[in-house]
C-alpha cells in the first residue's frame, strides 16, 4: 500500500476489501468527509488524509425492500438503513443478521464486511450493518 493512498471512492472500497472503514479528513479545516471526496467540499483543500473510523453507529432510518433490482432478487426481502456512525458521518447499507420485525430506529449496529466480491469496478466488496 502506498504511503498516501488517493482520497477516492475506489480507494474507500479497497479499504473495505481489507475490512477497514475509512474516511477522508481535511488537514486544513479538519472536516471528516464520507463519502470520500478528493477536494474538501468545505474549504477546497486537497491536503487530505485517510483515517480509520469506529465501526459502530445508531440506526437513523430503514426500509425493507420487497421489490428489488434484478441483481438483488435472490435475497429479497432485505433491509437497508442509514446509520449515524459514532464518529459523525452517515452511511447507507444493508442490515443483516436480524429479522426485519426486530429492527428499530435508534438501535446500535456495527459495521461488518463482505469481502467475497472481486475488488474491481463496479463490483466492490460491501460493508453492511448488523446488531452489536
Amino acid at each position, binding site marked *: 500500500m502506498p504511503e498516501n493512498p488517493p482520497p477516492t471512492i475506489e480507494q474507500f472500497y479497497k479499504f473495505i476489501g481489507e475490512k477497514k472503514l475509512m474516511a477522508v479528513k481535511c488537514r486544513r479545516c479538519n472536516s471528516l468527509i464520507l463519502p470520500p471526496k478528493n477536494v474538501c467540499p468545505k474549504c477546497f483543500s486537497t491536503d487530505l488524509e485517510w483515517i480509520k473510523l469506529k465501526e459502530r453507529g445508531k440506526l437513523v*432510518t430503514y426500509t425493507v*425492500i*420487497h*421489490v428489488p433490482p434484478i441483481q438483488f432478487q435472490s435475497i429479497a426481502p432485505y433491509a437497508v438503513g442509514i446509520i449515524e456512525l459514532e464518529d459523525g458521518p452517515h452511511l*447507507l447499507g444493508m442490515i443483516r443478521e436480524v429479522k426485519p420485525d426486530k429492527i428499530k430506529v435508534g438501535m446500535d449496529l456495527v459495521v461488518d464486511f463482505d469481502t467475497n466480491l472481486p475488488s474491481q469496478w463496479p463490483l466492490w466488496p460491501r460493508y453492511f450493518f448488523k446488531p452489536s
Partner: protein
Amino acid sequence: MYGREIFAEAVKEAFDRCPNLDPKRDIEALIVGHMGESYEHQGHTGPTLTDWAGLLPKPATRVESACASSGAALRCGIFAVLSGLHDMVMVGGVEKMTHRATSDVTEFLAMASDFPFEQWHGMTFPGLYALIATAHMYKYGTTEEQMAMVAVKNHRHGALNPKAHMQREVTLEQAMLSRVIAWPLKLFDCSLITDGASCLVLAKPEMARKFTDTPVHIIGSGQASDAIGLYEREEFTTLKAAKLAAQEAYRMAKIESRNVDVAEVHDCFTIAEIVAYEDLGFCKPGEGGSLLEKGVTTIEGELPVNTSGGLKSKGHPVGATGTAQAYEIYLQLTDQAERRQVKGAEIGLTHNVGGSGATATVHIYRRE
C-alpha cells in the same frame, strides 16, 4: 408509440391552443426534459423531438435532472427569454416507460441515486422514499394511513382528469392492503410507470397577448441542489433543496405560501406529498399528515393540491412531469380545468423534485 410521437401530440395541442402562432416563425428554440436513454435506447433527444414536432432547424437542448428534468427545462426556458436571447421558446419533456419490465424501470430510475453508495447496497427509489417515510413516522408520528390518504385523494382527482393514466378512485382499504414494495411503502404509495409528454410555449410578457387571450404569468422560479446520496443529508424528514427553491420562488413572486390557491406537488410517493406541504410552508414541519385528515388539500378544500391526480394517478412519465404540472396550473388559472376547476384560483405553484431531493424546482404562476 415512441416517446417522440407522444411529444409531437403534446406539441400539436399547444399549437392548437394558440391559433395566431406560426410555430416555424415564432418558436425560436426548444428545451426539453428527458431522463433516461435506456428506455428507448435513444439519447440526443433534443433534436429528435424537434424533428417530430416539425420545428427543425430550431436549436434544441435536452435537460436531464432526473424526475425534475422538465421543471429544470422550464427554468432554462425562463433564462432564455429573460436574457433577451429569445422572444419565444418551447419547453417540455417526455418519457416512454411502460414497454419495459418493472425490474428494468426500477433499475433505470435508481440511476438517479448514488451508484457506489446507494444502488450498490441494494437501494431502490421506493426504498429511498421509504427511508424518508420511516424517519417521518418516527419523528412526527405520521401514519401509513395518512400516506394512504394521499393516494385516495389524488386518485379521486385523477378520476376527473381525462388525461390521467389511472382514471379511477381507490379506497383507503385498497391502498392500505396493497402489497409492500419497500416497507413502509406499499403499491398504492407509489406513483405510476407512465408514458407521457408535455410542453409549454414561453414568451416575453408583452408578446403573449398577440398569441392567446389567456396567458398565464410565471412570477417566480426557484431551484436548488442537495447531495446525490440521501444518506449524506443532515435531515431525512425534509428536502432542503425544495425548501430553498420555494424560498427563492416566493421571494421573486413577492408572495407567501398562504397566497397560493392551487398547487401541483411532486407526489412520486405518498410521503413525498406530505413532506412537500411542509417544505412549501403549507403547514409546519410534522403537520403534513393532519392536512390530509382535515381535507385541506382536496379540490373542495382550502388549498387544493394535485388536482390533476398528481404523479400518483395522472402518472409519472419522469421527464414530462415538471411541465405537465405547469400545464395543469395553466388550465386552472385559465378556467379550463372542467370538473377539476378550483373556483377563483389566482395564484398557482408547481413543485418538481429530482431523485431523492438532489434537485428541486418550484415555480409560481399568476392569472392574467
